[in-house]
């Protein structure tokens, strides 16, 4: 009885594998930026509903992996969220599909509402260590940053410029944990993707410009990074169709409703 059951389940599993591989679908793989990953998954779902003959797989890994796998062919489309694409990406066709603001956030108890770019740089460099130096209460600033290699961190450092992160800055490994840390510590400051701001943290104005969708789209808020889709060679066939879909008003609508900003 047991043997029969085992045999039956084995046959079923093998059957399932063969069946799922053998449907002759065209498949597209995306890999890279974890910031864009949830958006890519949502867009892929939408696209597959209207195009059942296409199978799209979305993987994370980070921007560096996105560039690497687009180069090596491990993924047809690489995703990267960097201000400036590195040297390795020079042979890839890059399409900007969305923009993402980077918000400087503090605890809601903090009275500060605005910082200049220079102040932001000095705080993260460790030149300014107390909130009273920028007009706040007399308290030590707790700087929270991302780990080396993060797309958000390298974009932040490139836009602000000349940041050598101070040594005792706390390091958190995702936008979500940055948000938790800042929400829990009244004297902390961090940065995260604009789409992830909620009521537990307070975004600051930078150079008197608010971090809102309107001000980012208008080009006033300066901490903005593009999100690239990278393809080896020129855009054609199903891959072009999918990227066109993302750039269409329907795709851009999805991106916008989930918290990122449209490409243009």
């Amino acid at each position, binding site marked *: 009885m047991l043997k029969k059951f085992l045999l039956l389940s084995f046959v079923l599993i093998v059957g399932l594998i063969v069946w799922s591989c053998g449907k002759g679908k065209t498949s597209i793989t995306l890999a890279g930026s974890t910031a864009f990953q949830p958006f890519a998954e949502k867009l892929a779902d939408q696209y597959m509903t209207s195009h059942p003959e296409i199978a799209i797989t979305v993987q994370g890994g980070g921007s*560096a992996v996105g560039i690497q796998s687009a180069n090596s062919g491990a993924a047809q489309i690489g995703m990267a969220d960097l201000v400036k694409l590195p040297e390795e990406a020079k042979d890839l066709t890059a399409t900007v599909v969305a923009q993402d603001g980077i918000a400087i956030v503090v605890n809601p108890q903090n009275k500060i509402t605005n910082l200049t770019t220079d102040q932001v740089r000095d705080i993260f460099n460790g030149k300014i260590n107390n909130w009273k130096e920028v007009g706040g209460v007399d308290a030590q600033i707790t700087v929270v940053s991302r*780990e080396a*290699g993060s797309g958000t961190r*390298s974009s932040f450092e490139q836009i602000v410029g000349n940041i050598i992160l101070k*040594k005792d800055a*706390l390091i958190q*490994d995702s936008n979500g944990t940055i948000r938790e840390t800042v929400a829990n510590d009244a004297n902390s400051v961090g940065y995260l993707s604009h789409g992830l701001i909620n009521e537990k943290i307070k975004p600051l104005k930078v150079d008197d410009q608010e971090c809102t969708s309107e001000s980012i789209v208008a080009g006033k808020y300066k901490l903005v990074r593009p999100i690239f889709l990278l393809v080896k060679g020129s855009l054609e066939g199903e891959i072009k169709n999918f990227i066109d879909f993302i750039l269409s008003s329907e795709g851009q609508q999805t991106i916008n409703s989930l918290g990122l900003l449209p490409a243009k």
Partner: protein
Amino acid sequence: MKLIGEKGVKRLLMITAFSAISALLLIALFIINEGLPFIFKYGLKEFLFSSDWQPHLGKFGIYPMIVASLWVTLGAMLVGAPLGVAGALFLSEYVPKSIMNIIKPTIELLAAIPSVVYGFIGVMVLAPIIRDNFGGPGLSLLAGSIILGIMILPTVISISIDSILAVPRSYREGSLALGATIWQTIHMVTIKASKSGIIASIILGMGRAIGETMAVIMVAGNSVNIPNSPLDSVRTLTANIALEMSYATGLHRQALFATGVILFIVIIILNSIASVAIRKRMVKK
């Protein structure tokens, strides 16, 4: 059974036993193969004793993380070992057996709680307490030590209890008959007789503390920083690997594997010291 036969069973068991060893060998080979070339290229001294860890500038010094790993482990020992040994003594010497049989499995249940839950409690409860009462960012060496100290409790307590209970009854009876109190019996007879087991329990706890990753990432703050006080944030060797692996490429990735090599060596050294210590005690006894 007849089908396989005595020799067949032996062979089967041998293959199974060797699979564990070969897994260890494969892991060691893989880490060394990925990490060692980097150490040669970058220079062992620079890698071990420089405190600059800036992967995007090509600077890879893990000295702060080695120091942090050792401090956090020491801190966890300071919290976990006294609590654990005292708990084990109380449970085995003062509490009736029927009650101990309920409490001991409950403590062992602590080991079944995933480390991410410990980390979460550390972030939500412990870090704010430290921040409000002692200052600093809260996510700190102290928080990491306390959380790890609690995490190693089940290991320390259950192995200590086992070794204390293994002390023959006649030892205690002899001591009590000579007029010693329970506490005199405990510290002059029971502890002495079960010393090697208690030390082994602490060392096993230490092994867990130095290898723990998730909880430490969540509560220690992860600054690449040589701590000046227990309230400073630190990054351990394990945290360094886990934090940066997902984004690392090229030289940075190799540097993380090299960090793994160093961690591996540190653990081997600690374990050897431990087993030598235990063996010496055994011989003395």
